[in-house]
């Protein structure tokens, strides 16, 4: 047993200085989601969700590809690792591949990360098998391209232009290369549906694509397509969390309004100092940094 060569001066740093409030909020959000899943599983069919426009067009897009005998392109984003975003993208792609498998439409699933490639290959293989057409599955249609951003973009742009894809689906994490892909596909007249978790790229997809899922419609997509209780339930849980945060914004508005018209007392200044966030010496009233909720989310905790 190794001797401890140190002395603990303070335990539970992340719970100190109001940190527990942040932890509790996170736990509460987790609780909402789990509770939503629990309820939805118990009472399947009780949840309805609003229409998500771009998703209704998947069949149409794949259908057009079938007519023209040109391939369908899918890109599950440029996640830096195998993460939930890529998994979600592949879940959506599974239903696209299913349609493509039925109509014997060729597919191109181009991957940025090798681990995503591995999962994508498994999923594609499974889909063709469950549809009963394993011989239509071309191993080379699911590919790893490159894990360098612009080399990937160059290769995808080249594939789009060479194969004259009829439909293109971009789902997941996209960065600056979004427009390179989308404009090239637009040049060959492809129907494009995009959904990205990087909202900074959404405007470029809006400009170049036919349908764009905004924000977390991306996460709602699999629930919308599959109508599974678990997915619907977690969506409801997230909805409740959003409503709670909206309520919080109103409460915090009132709290901060009253805080802003009351001058700082010396005790308060001392308190701020003790908490590791001293205010300026000649400061009379709290600024944005000292407003309660803003402040507790930024206190250094060891």
């Amino acid at each position: 047993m190794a001797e401890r060569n140190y002395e603990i001066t303070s335990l539970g740093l992340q719970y100190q200085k109001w940190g527990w409030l942040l932890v509790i909020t996170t736990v509460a959000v987790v609780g909402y989601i789990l509770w939503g899943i629990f309820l939805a599983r118990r009472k399947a069919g009780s949840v309805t969700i609003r229409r998500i426009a771009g998703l209704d067009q998947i069949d149409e897009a794949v259908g057009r590809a079938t007519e023209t005998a040109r391939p369908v392109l899918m890109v599950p984003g440029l996640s830096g690792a195998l993460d939930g975003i890529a998994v979600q993208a592949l879940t959506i792609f599974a239903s696209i591949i299913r349609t493509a498998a039925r109509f014997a439409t060729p597919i191109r699933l181009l991957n940025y990360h090798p681990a995503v490639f591995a999962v994508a290959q498994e999923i594609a293989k499974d889909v063709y098998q469950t549809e009963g057409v394993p011989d239509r599955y071309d191993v080379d249609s699911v590919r790893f391209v490159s894990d360098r951003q612009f080399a990937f973009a160059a290769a995808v742009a080249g594939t789009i232009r060479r194969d004259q894809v009829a439909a293109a689906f971009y789902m997941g994490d996209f960065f600056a290369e979004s427009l390179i892909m989308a404009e090239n596909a637009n040049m060959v007249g492809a129907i494009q549906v995009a959904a990205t978790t990087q909202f900074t790229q959404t405007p470029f997809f809006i400009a170049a694509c036919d349908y764009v899922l905004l924000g977390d419609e991306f996460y709602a997509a699999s629930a919308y397509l599959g109508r599974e209780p678990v997915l619907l339930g977690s969506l409801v849980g997230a909805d409740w969390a959003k409503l709670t945060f909206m309520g919080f914004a109103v409460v915090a508005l009132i709290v901060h309004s009253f805080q802003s018209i009351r001058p700082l007392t010396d005790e308060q200044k001392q308190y701020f100092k003790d908490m590791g966030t001293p205010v300026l010496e000649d400061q009379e009233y709290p600024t944005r940094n000292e407003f309660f909720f803003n402040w507790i989310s930024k206190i250094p905790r060891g």
Partner: protein
Amino acid sequence: MLAQSVFTSEWWRELLSPDSRWQDGSLLRITIGAILTLGLYSLLYRENKFYRFTEHIFVGLATGFSVVALVKEVLWPQWWVPMLGVPERTATADMPAVPGVDAAWLWGALLPLACLAFFVFSKKHGWLSRIPLGIIVGLWAGQQLNAFQNRFLPQVADQARPIIPGPQTGIPDAINNLIVVITWIVVLSYFVYSFEQKSKFLQRTSLMGRWLLMVGFGAIFGTTMMTRFVLFIDRAYYLLIEWLRLGAQL
């Protein structure tokens, strides 16, 4: 400067001169980069053999570099060196000292686990690849609680501002703050999926939310355009000034 441009014999002599050919920033090396740049630019006209050639070079180099980086930055320092250790060496006249590293040979056990991923190509044992992949995605999932708390909660907290005009907040500030909060709430309401949007009010706010989102997206578009154009101007400088020397350098 034009005296040395591509239209003069000096330029060609410098390009072909044997002495400084491979030095940093030599004309020959710039020429290689410039030709590759033009290869990628040719995509703007149409897909062609020149582009295809450049693209395949690009992908080859990029993947090769990923392999190099993997060995250099991950496998060697994170796995091989900790596994086999390094004997300590004291400094001599012409060799610097090397600190010793103990050999944690247990790292060897990681290799078969990682290699399970290669079963993805096997029909019979394909499921084994899910073990390393599952570990990776599980590790990602576990981090998300922390990420949510540290990334999103401060943003939520930041939306809360005072709306009563006071000593620090003037009337314009108060109005702005109100707009900020309302914008935030209205946009968030667009992303509520499961509540039947039968009421006219909810439909209105939801539509408002979409419009406000477009304001945000338009702002992103506007700021990004500048940056992207400057990137191209920088490339044009590289091609026309640094390579062809058609004008004065900075």
